């Protein structure tokens, strides 16, 4: 916040305000606040007011446009005071001499602050800043697309700032899902920083394909606050998808690098940092690059030849659904598919939050979204967040829903068994209609 304010003032102070279309410098210019008041007396009143007017306009127009920075993921890299407190409690419990404790904590603090800054430096080296993104060779990101999505909005004649125009208020500047509107939404906006996406065409543990993410942008996610961005041009959607990947990769590299830095122990030097960074980048790049190799392609089956055949498939699907010894759908979704299996579980984003908040009690203030359990879906609503084509449901069952308690059943069920479960699940919203009409999609349109 202070950055945004001083940023606004520094634009007024600086000798050259950025021209429209000009990229903001990547080195941060933090204008001091105090000199304004001092200088005030020497200025003519009119000039002072004009300057204020400019500042006001800038602030209101851009909501902190002049200087925006990425931050560290505080769930992964807690602030130093919390880390020190946690260790102090342990040492005090061990009845260590006060002098020894003070010494260890001082070293810990110094080391942690050093490592934190090395981490921030590595992330800036690889990803640049929100105004000036960098496409690290080897990650396969397209700088042209990133530039369209990054940066401030509202520059005439240039397409940029798409992320801040369309996404940032929910997903946050870091892609952590902590935008200002996040707390009012249910479900919360996705935190991209774990690199996990729920609705994909790929197998368990694999990244989404580019097409998967584009599809989510085009279609939106029904039943959530995520709208369709179909009105954007294909090029704009591509740019935004590239930026989502970029933010995810930044989050993943951050997680891996933090683990590596902590595992190395002691203050990390530049050589070690470069080495660990390379390992993290290779792993992250590989996982994204090979996503297309893991698309789940369901076995096709012929359309039903009769209504009896369709009803038989639904009946078989129901049987599988209720079988606790096999896929155990009933365990979470309940005997009637209302999502009332009585399960209380959490998705991976929330699990991380719960664990870290338990470990560092002060962390809750920095992560302002109250914990919510992952609720098994009520299958009677006819709302399918990951898409309503039969192939979408097939993939949800085959590969599970990543990051959530919904597991992959691709090895417990045969393809025709999965299709029957799809038929059963898609019949549930119509269960009480006497004739049980075929939902329009049951003919596998769009497969």
């Amino acid at each position, binding site marked *: 916040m202070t950055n945004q304010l001083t940023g606004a003032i520094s634009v007024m102070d600086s000798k050259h305000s950025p021209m429209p279309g000009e990229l903001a410098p990547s080195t941060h210019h933090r204008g001091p606040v105090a000199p304004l008041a001092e200088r005030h007396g020497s200025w003519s009143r009119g000039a002072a007011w004009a300057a204020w007017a400019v500042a006001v306009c800038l602030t209101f127009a851009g909501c902190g446009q002049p200087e925006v920075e990425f931050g560290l993921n505080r769930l992964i890299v807690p602030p130093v005071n919390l880390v020190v407190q946690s260790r102090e409690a342990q040492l005090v419990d061990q009845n260590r001499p006060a002098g020894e404790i003070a010494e260890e904590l001082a070293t810990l603090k110094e080391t942690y602050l050093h490592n934190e800054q090395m981490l921030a430096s590595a992330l800036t080296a690889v990803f640049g800043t929100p105004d000036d993104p960098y496409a690290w060779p080897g990650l396969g990101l397209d700088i042209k697309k990133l530039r369209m999505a990054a940066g401030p909005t509202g520059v005439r004649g240039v397409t940029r700032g798409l992320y801040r125009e369309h996404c940032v208020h929910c997903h946050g*500047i870091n892609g952590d899902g902590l935008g200002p509107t996040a707390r009012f939404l249910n479900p919360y906006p996705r935190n991209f920083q774990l690199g996990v996406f729920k609705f994909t065409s790929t197998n368990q543990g694999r990244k989404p394909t580019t097409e998967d993410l584009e599809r989510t942008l085009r279609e939106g996610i029904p039943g959530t606050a995520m709208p369709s961005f179909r009105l954007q041009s294909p090029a704009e959607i591509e740019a935004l998808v590239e930026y989502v990947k970029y933010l995810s990769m930044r989050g993943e590299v951050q997680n891996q690098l933090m683990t590596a830095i902590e595992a190395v122990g002691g203050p990390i030097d530049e050589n070690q940092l470069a080495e660990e960074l390379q390992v993290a980048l290779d792993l992250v790049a590989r996982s994204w690059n090979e996503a297309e190799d893991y698309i789940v392609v369901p076995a096709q089956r012929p359309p039903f030849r009769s209504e009896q055949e369709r009803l038989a498939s639904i009946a078989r699907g129901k049987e599988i659904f209720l079988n606790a010894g096999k896929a155990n759908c009933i365990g979470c979704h309940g005997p009637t598919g209302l999502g009332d299996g009585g399960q209380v*579980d959490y998705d991976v984003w929330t699990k991380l939050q719960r664990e870290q908040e338990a470990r560092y009690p002060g962390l809750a203030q920095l992560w302002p979204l109250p914990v919510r359990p992952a609720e098994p879906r009520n299958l009677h609503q006819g709302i399918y967040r990951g898409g309503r084509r039969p192939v979408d449901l097939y993939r949800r069952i085959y590969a599970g829903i990543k990051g959530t308690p919904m597991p992959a059943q691709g090895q417990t069920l045969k393809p025709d068994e999965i299709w029957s479960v799809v038929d059963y699940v898609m019949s549930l919203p119509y269960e009480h209609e006497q004739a049980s009409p075929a939902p329009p999609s049951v003919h596998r349109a769009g497969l």
Partner: protein
Amino acid sequence: MRCPSLMLVTCAALLTTAVGCGDSSSDRGPRAKPEVVQNLRARNQAGSAAGQSGGSSMDQADGWGTIRGRFVYGGQPPARPPLSVTKDVQFCGQHRVLDESLVVGPDGGVKNVVVFLRTRDPKVHESYAEKIKQPVVFDNRDCRFEPHVLLVHTSQPVEILNSDPVGHNTSVQFQRNPSFSQGVASNQRVVQKMDVAETLPAPAACNVHPWMGGWIVVKDNPYMAVTDENGNFVIENVPAGVELEFQVWHERGAGNQGSVDGTGSVTNVDRGRFKVTVPKDGEVDLKDITLPPSSFRS
């Protein structure tokens, strides 16, 4: 003069506006160091990304030896509360499922303490050549994971089994390998493979039965062990004649990354680490290493 006070008001308004539209977390950490940023980019462009961090000490290794030891709990052993069995009660309820996050034996030995080698690129004894190709089994049995902590070499396939009459799923959250969440039907066997060593043990869970928890340790060298119910561990055929550094991890370890502190007559464990040099054809017995209660999270 009216001007300053008016300006103050504007200033307050500006501040409110700026606060209102920012991101919610206020502490975002330090700024990047420009010279480190430049150096890292330059290295990458020069194609010499990875620096050589400390050459391997393994050249001096001569022969092989054994390391053993025992971890004991330095206090009144904590009770193991029964876990609340909320699903498939007819079957799972028959087994008294106890909390396994901290298991202390009758003699004070701490079970499921993991010891693994930190020293990089160790020489590996030939006796491991076959062993690291044999599959290991992670069984869903009696509505718990057996073993509770599984050690896996990156060459080993993991067979996930379900010996129970109820359907399970085994969900493992890795950092470097693709995570999985695999449904496993009754009496079924599903094979998974991890290609990359994990820095830390990865948590395993069953989403159908939320009380089930376990851990999978994935390393690309065979020098790792997990303590038995008496707190004992042994690692055979480690490189002798060189100083080796080991990491001690426990799932409730209160230290950084699950590390524990311990004191012993042969060595202490400081923030999860100890160093040892094993003589050729010899053995180092670390004897009892006492882990104080504060080493574990409550």
